[in-house]
């Protein structure tokens, strides 16, 4: 089938405003969703290639979906609103630990006031979503400096969040319910009586979260709020002069971004890791998310998925390909090579194509539309 839009006329603005105005794109997306929601679970349930083992689900698809979600959150702040963040890992941690506390029951003794705040254990879904809201609250708090300071200064403010919460979850035993090892275990994943246990169920749960939140995020960024964010990013003074309030635009970006990252953090802890310690959300995680966003495409929801896929698959390829060629590399060399490749790719993309792989794909599609003619 040729990639052509001739004959597809739009008769309303609503049609022109659709996410994928071209029919072939819609078909491709429908096929992709069908594979993701039906094909993969079927193959995995019956252990058919490439799902003979659970490796592909556990080691690639599950982390891919959750990190892509976190990358969407990071992209809203960095790519759409232009506010640099080196603290995404901390907001994942806030989501994870808040969800953990809420799912296991919160008890805050206020002895000097003569009473205590007690919240009984909440259902898992409520805990995860409220974890997102806690992260959003923290995001707003650490976003307040962004009203006075710009770009690079904000990097340091978000680093402050990163290091402070690293420390808090490590050293304040209340957060870990006084677990002697500092490591905590996720509660049973009970959703309205259905307990999520197997890798396939976990995969479907994360797929559902990722799909729904990606659509909602896409709606936001192509609506008025998204335009406000991009206006602030591109020229904040002019944005103010057309009536955009920097306070509102920036803090909503921080809130929405942190909410998504917080939910991703809760999923990472509950669904993927199962038991975890603060190290799971260190500054390395923050930088990793930033890389996904730059490589996939700043200011692109689709790019967040592409970036997450690349960052997860590259190290595996570095392991597999040389081994196949008979030149196996040591783990250390792979790590170093990975550093060099990610670093140089980032420099290259920032110079040549700041909108990342997502933009390269859309240029490719543009060429395809006109093919075989160059113009």
């Amino acid at each position: 089938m040729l990639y052509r839009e001739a004959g597809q006329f739009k008769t309303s603005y609503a049609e022109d405003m659709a996410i994928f105005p071209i029919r072939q794109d819609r078909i491709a997306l429908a096929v992709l969703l069908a594979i993701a929601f039906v094909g993969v679970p079927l193959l995995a349930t019956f252990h058919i290639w490439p799902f003979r083992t659970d490796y592909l689900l556990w080691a690639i698809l599950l982390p891919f979906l959750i990190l892509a979600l976190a990358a969407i959150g990071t992209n809203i702040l960095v790519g759409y609103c232009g506010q640099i963040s080196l603290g995404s890992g901390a907001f994942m941690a806030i989501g994870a630990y808040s969800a953990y506390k809420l799912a296991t029951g919160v008890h805050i003794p206020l002895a000097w006031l003569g009473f205590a705040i007690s919240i009984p254990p909440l259902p898992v879904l409520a805990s995860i979503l409220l974890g997102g809201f806690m992260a959003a609250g923290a995001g707003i708090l650490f976003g307040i400096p962004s009203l006075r300071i710009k770009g690079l200064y904000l990097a340091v403010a978000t680093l402050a969040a990163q290091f402070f919460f690293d420390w808090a979850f490590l050293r304040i035993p209340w957060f870990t319910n006084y677990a002697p090892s500092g490591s905590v275990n996720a509660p049973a994943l009970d959703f309205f009586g259905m307990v999520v246990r197997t890798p396939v169920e976990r995969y479907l749960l994360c797929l559902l979260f990722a799909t729904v939140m990606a659509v909602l995020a896409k709606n936001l960024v192509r609506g008025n709020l998204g335009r406000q964010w991009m206006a602030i990013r591109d020229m904040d003074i002019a944005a103010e002069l057309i009536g955009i309030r920097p306070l509102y635009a920036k803090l909503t970006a921080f809130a929405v971004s942190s909410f998504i990252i917080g939910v991703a953090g809760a999923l990472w802890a509950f669904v993927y890791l199962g038991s975890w310690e603060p190290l799971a959300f260190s500054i390395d995680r923050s930088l990793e998310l930033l890389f996904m966003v730059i490589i996939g495409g700043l200011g692109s929801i689709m790019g967040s998925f592409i970036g997450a896929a690349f960052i997860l698959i590259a190290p595996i390829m570095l392991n597999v390909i040389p081994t196949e060629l008979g030149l196996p590399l040591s783990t250390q060399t792979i790590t170093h090579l990975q550093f060099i490749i990610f670093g140089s790719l980032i420099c290259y993309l920032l110079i040549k194509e700041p909108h990342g792989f997502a933009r390269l794909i859309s240029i490719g599609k543009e060429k395809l539309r006109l093919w075989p003619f160059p113009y």
Partner: protein
Amino acid sequence: MRAPDTNEILLQVEGVALAFGGVKALRDVSFNVRKGEIRAIIGPNGAGKTSMLNVVNGFYHPNRGVITFKGRTRAKMQPFEAARGGIARTFQNVALFKGMSALDNIMAGRTLKVRRGLLWQMLRYGPALAEEAEHRRKVEEIIDFLEIETIRKVPVGRLPYGLQKRVELGRALAMEPDLLLLDEPMAGMNLEEKEDMSRFITDVNNHYGTAIALIEHDMAVVMDLSDRVAVLDHGVKIADGTPDEVKKSQAVIDAYLGVAH
């Protein structure tokens, strides 16, 4: 040439002074803009024209003086408050959102008219979608009016200068302002582009009744377009009146020909 619809005063600037450190950009400037008129501010380079516009839309805060807009007096306000009051603005060096398409730039100008909040926009369903389509319809009117249909989805960073100026005008119009401030709308344009821009300006004024205050260096354009002209020199208003009156003013001739002060 067309007489202003009424003599009602829309904007009154009274005794405004502005200094950056020791540099006095404006000293005791007063002038007004009437409803529905085209008002030009002219003067040699460094006369304080842009500073004057910056004071009017709240980007600079004057050291002295008051500004009354639509009957409300204030000394200090934030730029977004000016925007909410109905003041729109274009810039000497185009200030568009470079990473966004022409359409999105103009849509961003609708921000103050958007009623549905974050949750509705996130769902983009029913009333929220209808609202978005309604804004899109209004914006498409502006796009038709400015004759930029073919470039609506092009990122503005890739557009030539003349078209960028038009998109910027479109963004200001999308705000449906009562007062439109244009800072050198024709700078760097060729004759044909200037004629187009002049036509857009008079059409906006005629069609929507928007009052326009513009800074321009091309005297032919100024004399042709404007109802009244104020002349600034070294931060002081040296003349004010109809184009004909200003042309005859000795102070203006001196300022432009460079008689020693």
